[in-house]
């Protein structure tokens, strides 16, 4: 069977991302060490504070969410940074590849790594801190995970746009973006504790709604009446906007000679 050429182009970026992760000890540390530290430190903190049952789950959901989104967005964010660091950007862009090939190919590896992190952290939360991950059911869990990966894709695409605009200097944005988003969306606290003006910003972040949706399975009242509707529709709109932004910055990079400058 002859597969469409687009399949191989997407596969090229997936394989490259997977190989870099496999051959880079730091990528492994990133995927295993930090999530482990995250779930242990947050879990132990809940013990120290004598938190119980649902409140522990509330906090642990935040820790699992943060690490899953962080890891899942990295492969997408790094898709062009690998080429920038190795100065091979012009070789990638002289080939007949589209932005979608890069985004989907690298994003797939991010999705697999994110899923692994979620499983590791979820497993530890269940084993060490008695969190009940079965409570939301398969449908609830799937919707939540889909929401996390959509958010990771939005962050990754925005970082790509920054890399094409500012080059290597945008590297720091790969982390900063997600931390800012996570701070605003009520990761370890309900967004009602945020100042009123900031609450408005939190409502513009789809992750806020996915956390709201997932936590309601643990007995916390829904803040929004239709969290999935808001979460998914916002995610789709932001994904379209961020894809458009990356396309525009790529066009501008072709005009301004950025692809060449980043290959020197």
């Amino acid at each position, binding site marked *: 069977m002859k597969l469409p050429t687009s399949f191989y182009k997407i596969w090229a970026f997936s394989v490259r991302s997977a190989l870099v992760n496999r051959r880079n000890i730091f990528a492994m540390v990133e995927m295993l060490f930090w999530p482990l530290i995250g779930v242990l430190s947050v879990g132990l903190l809940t013990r120290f504070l004598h938190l119980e049952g649902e409140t522990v789950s509330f906090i642990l959901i935040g820790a699992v969410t943060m690490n899953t989104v962080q890891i899942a967005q990295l492969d997408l964010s790094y898709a062009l940074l690998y080429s920038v660091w190795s100065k091979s950007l012009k*070789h990638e862009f002289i080939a007949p590849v589209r932005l979608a090939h890069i985004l989907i190919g690298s994003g797939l590896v991010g999705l697999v790594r994110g899923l692994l992190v979620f499983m590791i952290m979820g497993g530890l939360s269940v084993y060490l801190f008695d969190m009940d991950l079965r409570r939301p059911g398969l449908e609830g869990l799937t919707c939540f995970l889909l929401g996390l990966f959509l958010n990771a894709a939005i962050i990754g695409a925005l970082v790509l746009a920054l890399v094409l605009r500012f080059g290597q200097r945008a590297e720091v944005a790969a982390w900063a973006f997600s931390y800012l988003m996570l701070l605003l969306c009520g990761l370890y606290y309900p967004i009602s504790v945020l100042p009123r003006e900031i609450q408005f910003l939190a409502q513009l972040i789809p992750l806020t709604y996915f956390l709201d949706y997932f936590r309601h399975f643990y007995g916390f009242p829904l803040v929004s009446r239709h969290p999935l509707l808001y979460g998914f529709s916002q995610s789709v709109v932001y994904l379209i906007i961020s894809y458009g932004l990356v396309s525009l910055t790529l066009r501008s990079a072709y005009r301004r000679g950025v692809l060449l400058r980043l290959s020197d």
Partner: protein
Amino acid sequence: MQPAIAAQGIGKGFRTGLWAPVKQVLRQVDLSVAPGAIFGVLGPNGAGKTTLISILATLLLPDTGQAKVLGLDVVREAARLKERINLAASGAHFLWCLTVEDSLRFYGRLYGLGGRPLYDKVEKLLDLFGLAEHRRVTFERLSTGLKQRLSLAKALINDPELLFLDEPTSGLDQEMAQHIREEILRLNRELGVTLLLTTHNLREAEMLCTEVGFLKEGRLISEGRIPELQKRLGLGDHLSLIFQDAPAPLDYGRLPGVLRHLVRDFRVDLVLDRADDRLPAILEAVYLSERKLAQVKVKPVDLEEIYREITH
């Protein structure tokens, strides 16, 4: 026959800062390259060689003018054009942790290759460029020569009809540079690939190129076949006649093919349009004058001389 490259009025400028004025790198460049040619773009550093090659290779959008490569517009039909061209640049750079084989597979997939065709293609290129024994070596561990070979192998992954080579032997030792030049000639002769290369190595251009163009401060100030340029500029081969005593009493300026002459002591220096054709008649005239020659030196015109003449 449709030219492989046809560019008219190409202009490009860059800003070095947000408020800085635009620095013009290319100005109204017209270029025509025949299919199957090896065209050399020559010029000093900063002349605009890489900018020109990048525009033609769809990596940079021109500010003015238009260019067609293999009959396709480099801006509007870039996606289709990318299938049929490729690039190898000096100081090859690929992802540090990918092996030689991984890199070729990666780039092969970017051109839509997969399965058996990709496997066969990679094997063929590994053999062709002597990379088979280094196939599992990561890029960061390769020597400069091997990196350059990998760069050329990658550039052939899609069987390009036109190949851009940006300073292909820059930074290589003599032996490796010569090897790469032989590969370039072989690509052109055996596979019929049209090549456009930039270099500031005139000897290299002389060795490889069927046609050359000289860029200076963003303008293509002269282009053509080397003999045509020589003729256009009134440059010729050098013939030195060194006599045992006084030089032959001839009207050297009237001898056939003599462009310029200079008589000094026992020596006469002539500049001829074509030394090979004119030498017998000149030597016969000297013989008839019954003056004895101690030495005859012939030095063909070289690109360096043409370059000097054009750029100064």
